[in-house]
């Protein structure tokens, strides 16, 4: 029955295909699949070599393949991989929380209050956010020694968190301010009449509404430390303090410690949760991008 119907009637909403269009469509598919291959092949190699027990120090492709977990074992038993993971997560969480704390206040204040110096400081914020973080590299190391002399217990990791969070204040303030601007101030008025003070208006009304944007800001601040190599390589001295990026690099940068398959294994373990996060939160991340949530 249905088949018969299909034969006789043209069911699609779209106009029928011409032969030229069919060829173009075929080419499109070929290109798309070719690029799928280009993307998947190297990634597949990472996965494959991390499980290939027949390699030792170097990665080989082709040759015998022997499934094993020995590179993972090596990572956890011979290298402080777990430590790196914990370091990175601690730094990432602290960065995200601190950023949220700073930005919540500034974003709300800049959006809702007219105060002296507001315009000037907004301009300053815009200027600051165009200055790349690496500008201070010559000063960071010494600056840390000075601060830790004044505040005992101020560790290098804390300093790194402060740099990440502090560096993000300017651009994130701007983003959050823009988002809060789009919420009607009548809501604030209503909340004030209902009995909220300055702070409660933010906590009970504005914050729940801007939660999606806060989530994006938190997410990006959280991911930042996972991706950055330069700052931790400058600021963190002890391999025990390393983050994943600096730690994994030690596995491939000199021939004595060289262990490429273990690097692949570590890379896989690092990438997996982040990839899942990205795929799950595609939409939010992209909308964050579109509003300029990331510098890069």
């Amino acid at each position: 029955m249905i088949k018969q119907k299909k034969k006789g009637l043209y069911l699609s909403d779209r106009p029928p295909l011409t032969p030229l269009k069919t060829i173009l469509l075929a080419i499109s598919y070929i290109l798309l699949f070719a690029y799928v291959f280009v993307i998947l092949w190297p990634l597949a190699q990472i996965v494959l070599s991390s499980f290939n027990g027949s390699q030792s120090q170097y990665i080989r492709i082709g040759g015998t393949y022997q499934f094993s977990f020995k590179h993972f074992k090596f990572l956890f038993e011979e290298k402080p991989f777990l430590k790196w993971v914990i370091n990175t997560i601690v730094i990432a969480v602290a960065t995200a929380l601190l950023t949220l704390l700073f930005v919540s206040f500034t974003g709300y204040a800049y959006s809702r209050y007219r105060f002296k110096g507001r315009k000037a400081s907004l301009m300053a914020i815009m200027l600051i956010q165009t200055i790349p973080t690496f500008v201070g590299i010559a000063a960071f190391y010494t600056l840390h020694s000075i601060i830790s002399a004044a505040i005992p217990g101020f560790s290098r990791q804390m300093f790194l968190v402060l740099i990440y969070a502090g560096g993000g204040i300017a651009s994130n303030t701007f983003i959050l301010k823009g988002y809060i601007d789009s919420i009607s101030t009548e809501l604030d008025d209503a909340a004030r009449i209902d009995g909220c003070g300055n702070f409660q208006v933010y906590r009970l009304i504005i914050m729940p509404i801007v939660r999606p944007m806060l989530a994006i800001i938190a997410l990006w601040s959280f991911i930042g430390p996972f991706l950055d190599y330069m700052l931790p390589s400058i600021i963190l001295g002890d391999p025990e303090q390393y983050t994943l990026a600096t730690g994994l690099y030690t596995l491939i940068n000199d021939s004595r410690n060289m262990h490429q398959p273990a690097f692949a294994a570590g890379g896989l373990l690092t990438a997996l949760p982040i990839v899942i996060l990205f795929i799950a939160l595609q939409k939010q991340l992209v909308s964050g991008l579109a509003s300029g949530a990331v510098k890069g």
Partner: protein
Amino acid sequence: MKIQLNNIGKKYEGRENFTIRNIDLEIDDKDFCVILGPSGCGKSTLLRMIAGLTSITEGDLFFGGKRMNSVEPKDRDIAMVFQSYALYPHMTVYENMAFSLKMRKERKSVIHERVLEAAELLQITEYLYSKPSEISGGQRQRVALGRAIVRKADVFLMDEPLSNLDAKLREHMRVELVRLHQSLETTSIYVTHDQTEAMTMATKIVLLDQGKIQQVGSPTLFYEKPANLFVAGFIGSPTMNIFRGKIKHGHFLSSEEDFVIEPKAKDRELLKPFEGKKVAMGIRSERFIAGKADKNAINVKVDVIEMLGKEQLLYCQFPNGKECVISEPGYFEYAVNEEHNFHLDIEGLHFFDEETTERIN
């Protein structure tokens, strides 16, 4: 709760002049007071000062004899309905309505009871657990009202609450609001720029223009005795016909000298001091009487006819091009371009001093 405004004025920071000034107003308990005026005249500013959302630059505000100038909005015991409803989008209807009571640490059983009561009154019980985004505009409007009702506040403030609704629903809500006011008997202040809303709902209208009160009074007063030319032009649809002219021998002579009107005796008395001075005369469209007469008569050509069913509006022209609007029963037969005779009902004449624009009679 009686509300009293003494010489209230507001000057926004960063503005040269006072936005509104010298506002003296008394709103009695249980009044439904409508603040009416053209856009930008400072209605919202006034309302927000009463609410405490904007500071008062000068003057005193009293609620029931208590000075309120620097009392926080939350402590003024008011409820406010906003133009955009300002429902909290992340809370359910129930939570929206309960929010103010929760903030005041009200007893939980009382909160539940009041929310249900208000919901019943407004017929939104069904949507209590929906989010504002899941209900229609009219329902949102009710929730906004409900949020105000649960507070059992002394004063209701509303800033153009109906302007986001379609015409039909607006008409309906107008009646509902009046009914609500009659049952709750809360002193209400309602801001609008729509004179129909003002005329149909108010027990007291305050007409604002250019930061000043033009007239205060009941709707009938506004219609029958507009205090000045602005009020005369603002209230009533179609707009009152205004003729410029002067007083000569106690009669009104139009400026083109094409017709003479003899006012009634009482008016003539009042017009005496204006002998020879410029005066404007107003008459509403329904105060023209069809047919010839030997006094107070005019002859005009019908330009456009607007048929409304029970009545028709005739847009007419004098021979010299002056225009006027006349309404006549719908069953009278008129045609475009015909000339007709009308005379003026001298009971329905309004005279204004051209210089001060104030009413004379």
